[in-house]
């Protein structure tokens, strides 16, 4: 249990990576790294597909990256109706790691550009849900 706290609305209650949510509460966005072969994963995984190990450590994701692409949703799926418009995007950290998230509400839509420098940070919604978002660098 614990993973139901992740995101605006979680569809997954149980995962061996549920500790990810505890790290969010501490202000950390963490991926997993295989203790045996050193392969890094984001989103986090409990099992290494490279060497089959299930011994993983946590590592903190880089803060600074570039916005690879984005979209602004004017409609939302069931359960998210109160949210539009909201912008989602992919951040490339340049070291083989990327991240998908919403963009912070304080970035004006006209200021969002492909290739712009961005940072990532955790956030807590009013209902106590924990997530992370893309913010201005």
């Amino acid at each position, binding site marked *: 249990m614990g*993973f139901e706290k992740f995101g*605006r609305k979680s569809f997954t209650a149980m995962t061996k990576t549920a500790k990810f949510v505890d790290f969010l509460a501490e202000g950390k966005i963490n991926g997993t790294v295989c203790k045996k072969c050193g392969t890094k994963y984001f989103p986090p995984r409990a099992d290494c597909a490279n060497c089959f190990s299930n011994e993983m450590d946590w590592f903190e994701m880089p803060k600074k990256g570039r916005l690879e692409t984005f*979209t602004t*949703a004017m409609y939302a*799926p069931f359960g998210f109706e109160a949210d539009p418009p909201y912008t989602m995007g992919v951040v490339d950290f340049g070291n083989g790691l990327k*991240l998908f998230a*919403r963009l912070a509400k304080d970035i004006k839509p006209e200021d969002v550009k*492909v290739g712009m420098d961005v940072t990532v940070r955790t956030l807590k919604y009013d209902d106590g849900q924990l997530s992370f978002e893309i913010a201005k660098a």
Partner: protein
Amino acid sequence: MAKDVAVIGVGQSHFVRGYEGSIRELAFEAFREAMQDAGITQKQVDASIFCSAPEYDKQRSPAGVLAEYLGLIPQPTFYVETVCSSSSTGVKIGYGLIKSGLHDVIVVLGFQKMSEITSAESQERMGRGADIQWEAPFGTMMPAYYALYAQAYMAKNGLTHDDLMNVRVKAATYGQINERAVYRKGVKPEDFDPKNPEAKLAAPVALPLRVGDCCANADGSSCIILASKKKVKELGIKKPVYILGLGAASEAVNMAARPDCAQGIKVAKVAADVAYKMAGAGPQDIDVAEVHDCFTIAEIMAYEALGFAPVGEGKQLIREKATYREGKIPVNVDGGLLSKGHPIGATGGSQIRTIVLQLRGEAGPMQVKDPEIGLVHNIGGVGLYGNVTIFGR
């Protein structure tokens, strides 16, 4: 290229919004047409494969239920799913079963009654069509994913809103002459003009994609009947269309684990390379193609993945009208998903039917001049599954 497995019958229901019947009756419409096309009876069918996306079905395990309704018991039957490419996957499996010698004649039936559930339920399932653990919690939906690709193409490959619009204009050109399509209206540039209050297609969905950039949900069925070379002869099939090449691939579900969106959808390229190699053919050999234009951007990316244009240059084909019926490489001259509608499990079979009719010279007002080799590009999910199948006379 080996000519071991042929398509001997094709069928498709009208694609509609809100089919007035059950999934059994919907499946029967495509089945009847394909069986009459092949000129065979149920006794001559060795097995059936049913293809759909199960989250829309109220009926659990529909294969057995549908096989009985179609009169295909006691022959073996089963169900396959790769979301939007389910029926291409069904055809691939059917090919394998015939090629192995296990069966000689197989019915591949794709169906989807998207209106089986309410639109609110459907919307929720769509939102969960990708990575439910790590992405759906942000409120993702299908148009938003394809919009990520469109945005990257605009920023890095010089794609414009008008290029996307022109894909829809082309689709509608042929949707008007395809009596099985759900969207039969023509589309003009003013239908995309945000200053035009009547322009319903201009409304933003997930920027930069607008309503007109998205295909519509639909109810429909498709049926492809496959046979071994031996059976083609025995049954006296006059115009068999052979499967020359099959390619399929899979990709990471999470956008964070994919190549730069400006490179397009990787599964399509991988699947195309495999299919071309098997067929001993290349992009220059394709006379007519059906591509998975669930969104306008998807058609531009398909041109590139299939090698009709270099990566980043797909836009040129629509600018030059090279993919119109009279162009260098006609694409989706049946209106594509954008005009026909997209009944998930039935879509691949509908694309295959179009190519088979084209190769037989039976495509009516949509007929391309004397094509010999045709290609179907059918994508499942947001580039989660890629399927490319090449057909020849």
